[in-house]
């Protein structure tokens, strides 16, 4: 018996507005992503890639069609159920890091665990492990303002993985970072996919960043223009 794909889109569409002014952000998309994949999503702005990410993340719902998570249709989910899906299955990394200001690194990482109702000591322990995993050991007490952009993104990644999510959703994770730091962050994300088996879905508009994925989806005008497997250069090197 084969496991169902972790993410399935069946004829998913998303419309904004009415009548003449209707914008088709997603137009009957079929898509399936298997556990353990590293998928890069590219496309010009307005192509529907962010909408697709929001639907996968349970932050938005399709106008029509069905989004299945681990084979389970989500169309009947209410807001709370979608929240629980995020809480237990998904980790988010954003372009703007989205850390809480004036809050220490470790407290930021603990945040998703707080909402799970985990007790203080267990939470702290797991947050410290996650911070160590992203290479921020020793900076646990630094507040957001005291960290560089790369370090802030590491904290955000630690926050995303501290709950052991099935899927890591990264929306332009390197958009605010310089080339060198971008490479470091991408190494980190690649490692999480390779070593921890976390499914990674990443939106980017940079070809070299997208190249880290093992599969590349290109969105154009709400359609899936291409879907191809990628062989990574460094896989050859190793």
């Amino acid at each position: 018996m084969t496991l169902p794909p972790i993410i399935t889109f069946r004829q998913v569409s998303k419309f904004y507005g009415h009548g003449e002014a209707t914008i088709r952000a997603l137009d009957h998309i079929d898509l399936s992503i298997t556990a353990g994949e590293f998928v890069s999503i590219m496309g010009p702005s307005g192509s529907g890639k962010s909408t697709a990410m929001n639907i996968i993340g349970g932050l938005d719902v399709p106008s029509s069609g069905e989004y299945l998570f681990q084979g389970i249709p989500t169309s009947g989910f209410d807001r709370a159920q979608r929240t629980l899906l995020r809480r237990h299955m998904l980790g988010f990394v954003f372009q703007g890091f989205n850390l809480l200001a004036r809050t220490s690194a470790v407290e930021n990482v603990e945040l998703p665990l707080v909402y799970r109702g985990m007790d203080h000591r267990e939470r702290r322990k797991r947050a410290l492990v996650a911070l160590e995993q992203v290479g921020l050991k020793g900076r646990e007490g630094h507040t957001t303002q005291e960290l560089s952009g790369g370090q802030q993104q590491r904290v955000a990644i630690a926050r995303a993985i501290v709950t052991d999510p099935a899927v890591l959703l990264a929306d332009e994770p390197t958009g605010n970072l310089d080339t060198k730091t971008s490479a470091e962050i991408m190494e980190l994300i690649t490692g999480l996919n390779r070593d921890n088996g976390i499914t990674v879905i990443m939106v980017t508009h940079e070809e070299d960043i997208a190249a880290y994925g093992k599969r590349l989806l290109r969105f154009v005008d709400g359609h899936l223009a291409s879907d191809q497997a990628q062989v990574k250069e460094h896989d050859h090197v190793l």
Partner: protein
Amino acid sequence: MFFETAKLAWRAISRNMLRSFLTVLGVVIGVAAVIAMVTVGNGTTAKVQAELSRLGTNTLFVRPGQWGPGRASSEAKRFNDKDVLAIQEQVTGLRAVAPLNRGTATVIAGGANHSSSVIGTNNDYLIAQDWDLSLGRQFLANEDRGSQAACIIGETVRKELFGATNPVGQNIRVSNVSCPVVGVLAVKGQSGMGDDQDDTVIMPLKLHQRRIGGTTTISSIILSAQDGVATTKVQSDVESLLRERRRIAIGREDDFSVNDMSQIAAAMTGTTVLLTGLLGAVAAVSLLVGGIGIMNIMLVSVTERTREIGIRLAIGALERQVLTQFLVEAVMLSIFGGVSGIVAGLALAYGVVSFLGVPFVASPTIILLAFAFSAAIGMVFGYFPARRAAQLNPIEALRHE
């Protein structure tokens, strides 16, 4: 989880300490005003009651007309000597029956003069009102009958008119009545109502009626029951006797009243109930204004923290959890306001009470009520902003800058 939420709320509040303080100022002032007024009011009432109870619970006051708020007594027929005599002879269990006429007159001795309250009564008055004599004696029988003038003066009158010299045996003139001083009352000080009880001249009723009041009637009668005799029995005996004497038909209301101190005290507190009601209305308005202040600042806070709320929603906070967070923050704010108000109100009351010389009586009920009310204010006025926060769209919230 609750501790977590409280910690978060505290952080948000303390981050904007000045703003938080100004926000709750309305609640602080409202609560402080209520606490201060109620506490001062309680102190005054306590003093009055202590005063009244010192006079004894076995004392009854008989007056014409019905006594109490909103009742006019001026129309009712006054008493006469025969009423007093009838009570003395027919009601058992009394240790003192004192008729009482009261007036104000200028009292002169030597070169000094002083305006004082002048009471016409008998020796029983000293028993019923618990007066001791510091000098001299009570009235003699012939003085009581009015054939011989005599006066007993209070300490204030003695001081004003005689200074250091002994007044006993000397003459004073009360409204042109020449009257030898036979005794001096021991010091009692201020009454609960704030008047000087020692500023008085006591003379036999007959003398007072003839020379001061120009009347043969009696305005009230003070009775004192013997120890161990129920005042309620005395009260009903006196009532039925007076109804008979005043020919009040069965079914008609008394045109006089017989009250003991606790009943008079209750009537007095009756008037304060109205005041308390008004006070409550003022408090409600000020707390309402305070609550709107809290709602306003919570709405500002939600807008300012839209992005933070978006982050929380995105990483797995339920609507309920965000709602609770903001609600706890609002309640915490208003409770701070309430507690500060209670402290400020008590401090203010303490100052006023010390100044007035009445006891400091903090009412736990009103303090608890103020606390509960301020918490409720936070709950009610915090709900709308908190709900707004909880229902934010996470995608838009995350985009918010």
